């Protein structure tokens, strides 16, 4: 029974970390690009691990029924682990919104357009992400996933001697900005925050609600039909 319980827990863990490792490998190999076929790899890993653990349990226990129970339940927990990690992976919109909120805090309490401007920024950013090629969107999702992870927050913050053991979205706004600045100052690794800043800054200033502050009128038609 101990084998069964521990193997099932391992199954969940393998499922969860298979997703993480898959994307972390992509990052560490220096290729912020993926073909969008990760699920095939999960099926392959799941199949191999199920066979391996099933064989191990049968070898240790010689109990055919227990092995059958394991083979029936293990994949379910493995898939649960994958689903949970995928859910985390798909929280990039939450990370995006947290970034927008922390990069553009409300400075004037009388600014009644601020919330609308941030909502507009989020909408425009999401439209841009939604129209990207699938492979490039996945690259950005990887970036959001990694950016938000406890792993990245911990090690990036540690560079400046700060101990943070939390996901980005759970940090205070001040810590979020500080974390972003620390990362952006690391030469060679700063492309990530620069890409996120470019996306969000571009969207913020695409919204006409941001223009009054900088005296931009957004008039196009004197130059006409796009310039």
């Amino acid at each position, binding site marked *: 029974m101990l084998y069964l319980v521990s193997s099932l827990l391992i199954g969940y863990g393998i499922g969860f970390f298979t997703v993480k490792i898959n994307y972390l490998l992509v990052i560490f190999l*220096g*290729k*912020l*690009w993926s*073909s*969008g*076929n990760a699920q095939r790899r999960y099926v392959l890993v799941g199949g191999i691990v199920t066979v391996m653990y099933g064989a191990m349990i049968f070898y240790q226990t010689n109990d055919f029924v227990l092995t059958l129970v394991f083979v029936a339940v293990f994949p379910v927990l493995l898939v649960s682990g994958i689903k949970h990690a995928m859910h985390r992976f798909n929280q990039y919109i939450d990370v995006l919104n947290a970034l927008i909120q*922390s*990069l*553009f805090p409300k400075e004037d309490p009388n600014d009644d357009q601020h919330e609308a401007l941030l909502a507009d920024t989020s909408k*425009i950013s999401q*439209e*841009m*992400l939604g*129209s*990207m*090629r*699938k*492979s*490039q969107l996945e*690259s950005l999702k990887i970036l959001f996933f990694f950016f938000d992870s406890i792993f990245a927050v911990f090690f990036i913050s540690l560079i400046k001697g700060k101990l943070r053991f939390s996901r980005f979205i759970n940090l205070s706004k001040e810590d979020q*900005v500080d974390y*972003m*600045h620390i990362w*952006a100052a690391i*030469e*060679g690794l*700063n*492309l990530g*925050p*620069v*890409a996120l*800043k*470019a*996306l969000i*800054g*571009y*969207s*913020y*200033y*695409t*919204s*006409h609600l*941001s*223009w009054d*502050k*900088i*005296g*931009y*009128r*957004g*008039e*196009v*038609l*004197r*130059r*006409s*039909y*796009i*310039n």
Partner: protein
Amino acid sequence: MTALNIQTTFDADETKNVDVCIIGTGAGGAVVGYHLAQAGLKVLMLEKGDYYSHDDIKSETREENLHKLWKNRGAQLTKLPLLAITQGECVGGSTIINYGICFRIPNETLDIWKSETGVEFSQDELGKEYSEVEKQIQVRQITDAGTSHEKLEIGCKALGYSGSWMYKNYITDEGGIKQNVLLSYLEKAKPENLEIYANCKATKIIKNGDKISGIQAVHTNLNETITIDVKSTILVISAGTIASSELLLQNKIANSSGYVGTHLGFHPASSVIAQFDHVIDGQNDLSMAYHCNHFGIEKTHEPGMMIESIFIPPSTFSAATPGIGKENAEFLEKYDHSAVAGVMIQDEAHGTVSLNWSKDAVVDYTLSDNDGKKLLEGLKAIAKIFFAAGAKKVITGHIQKTILESIDDLHIIDERGFGLGSFRTASAHPQGGNRMGATKKNSVVNSNCRSHDIKNLYICDASVFPTPLGVNPQLTVMTIASLAAKKILEQKTDIFG
């Protein structure tokens, strides 16, 4: 002007029989479509993007328009996300979103094309065609461009750098209305002969023996996918660099040379922002106007760089300036005191387009060391020019925050180097991928844009350029397409019987 014969929505599957099917309605496709329709051929143009009338565009701001009209909303990146590539995706293609700058091909670049792949244009043939296209699209030299552009002129003159006001396809009404192929070609074509299907993506090219026999396109609305089957005697692919190669690779055609998806160049560009102590307010000015060709191929006789003054909207300005959040916002506060110029490299054509497992195009391109050095020198040259014009501060397009307070700070640019990911770079001029040349041993199409492999297939867009031009490419795309259309008509009897 005639009424545009255009359809943007579709209710049911249909089959069309035409003489010519053209995929893409940009600089290349529109010119070919116009000439063939005027000659009496039945032409159907398939466009993946939507159609936006003049009134549609007038009713919204520049930002809202650009957000809609750019391919992938401007978020088209290379495999390593170091280069943002801007292309239009709408009826009219990139000619709708570009700044309308027109240059003829430099003689030196044409010589490179001739020696590398055996391109067979004569100067006379090209010159005559350029003149016709320039007349049709109303090319004139820019005047009264505005203060932000004059800064580049002042600096160049102070340093003795050669430069001049550029040529643009625009009319001077209402302060300068830029033309595009929608206005100059498509709306002037005979509507009974030229039909446009917008929001239709060509997905499948059907080959029968050594000829193309049909094209399948899909229109996707909220509820269903509608299929358009096109039977045509000739197929012209003008989907633009990257997409044209992608289509050929997806359909595994016209690639006996193995060159489809190779030799891409991008004219990678980076910008320099200069802050002045007085208001410039570039939003009142033309979008692009003065150029310094002191370091260009026509002066140095080898691929070099071009410096051009440019107005950029706050969205792009934010992405082009350093800092995050508040720090970045401080640069935006000086928006109306800023002038901008970009340096564009005539780069080595070593980029590739390939397909990933999802059959999507992946563009692989990074700056070579040689091109990185040129870009670095270009940023230095612009900094010098702006300081000579009286700038108080110069911000370069490095990823790492780089702000120069005076000419004495130029060494900082050298210290930044030109390694991978050193600069913010963008490309508005993707070229190559289906290079033109004398034989199938070195190219995909011949000098008439006709496939070496498939006799009724033509490729007419910037993807046929063997190497990057070194100057803004739209006029040359139109001119080569115009020549190709005339060759098709010369061979009309052979092709159509």
